[in-house]
């Protein structure tokens, strides 16, 4: 069980305790799989944190290890795909990095 800030919640996480608002009204019971609707309610009621089952990971964490040389080659080969973009922009840099990891690990959508 772990307390997760509301802003970091994602659909699929399961509540480990009842979520109540400032006047003790039950918003989301314990043991519920959070949907986007729940997240909107929690956001609108300004709930700061929510107790979540497990360690807060709703998807399997990959124990992937990528050879740094392979990753570097992937980053280089993606320069062409990103040739219209400014790779110094933090968001572009992040997308380029994520795409390189996918390419290097052979991960497909």
């Amino acid at each position, binding site marked *: 069980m772990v307390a997760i800030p509301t802003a970091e919640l*994602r*659909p699929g996480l399961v509540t480990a305790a009842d979520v109540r608002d400032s006047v003790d009204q039950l918003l989301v019971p314990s043991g519920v*799989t959070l949907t*986007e609707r729940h997240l909107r309610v929690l956001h609108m009621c300004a709930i700061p944190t929510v107790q979540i089952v497990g360690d807060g990971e709703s*998807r399997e964490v990959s124990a992937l290890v990528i050879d740094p040389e392979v990753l570097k080659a992937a980053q280089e080969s993606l320069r062409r795909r*990103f040739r*219209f*973009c400014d790779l110094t922009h933090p968001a572009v840099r*992040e997308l380029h990095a994520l795409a390189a990891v996918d390419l290097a690990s052979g991960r497909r959508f």
Partner: protein
Amino acid sequence: MTSLPRLVSGAVGLATLPSIYLRLSDVASDPRTGAVEVGRVISEDPALSARLLRLVNGALYGLSHRVETIDQALMLAGTSQVLDLALANSVIRVFAGIPASMLDVDAFWRHSIATGLAARAIAVQRRELNPERFFVAGLLHDIGRMVLALHEPQRLARALEEARGGDVMLHHAERATFGFDHADVGAGILAAWHLPPALQQAVAYHHAPIAAVAFPVEAATAHVADVIAHSFELGASGQPGVPTLEPAAWDRLGLLPAALSGIVDDVRRQYVDVVQVMLIYENAAIAAQAS
């Protein structure tokens, strides 16, 4: 030289939204009707009902239990969300089965769905109240290119050549060839279909999001979602490479770059399922009808 209005009216003449969607839209906007009436209209179209249930029960919502009826889907997701999903289905149906010589239609819709999912994931991250609206905006963002491929294939071919040869973005080559680009065409189509102004602006300005005065968030979302879809080469729209990210659009969304990983994961989780429901089922349904 075909003018933009002539192109749009010619295209809309051949491509009308399915009557089921128009009826749904009427029923939903009538203040005297409620979810029950909306549910009844949807239920009259078994194919649409099946498609909507399949979407709600799939990766888009990640429910832990099955939704069995349209009424349950309406209660769970909300009427406007279900309507937006119905609109998404309707648009794909409009163009389904029409071959386009200058465009890989399947790849086009995959790119459109990926952009829709990225836009939706951005909206969810930003706690927008109507994520499906953003899904539709992303899905429709390049619809103008489909229209160009169907109605002006030779000139689109020239624009494609220029984009490849001159190493420029395709919408710039379109503007040089046509005097307008696919965003202008798409916006015209959506206006002719009387779709909401927020959707029109998202499509019109997805390459020039700063110019979207009335609906800057929708345009910025479509813009960034397009960049995300291209970053992972999910489908193809003819545009070679990732389009330039407009920093002001990124700033407008107020997201941290670290949020992109979660957004991309959402798209990754949903892409295969939604493509299956919206594209593959659709193509199979058309093939079955044709045989």
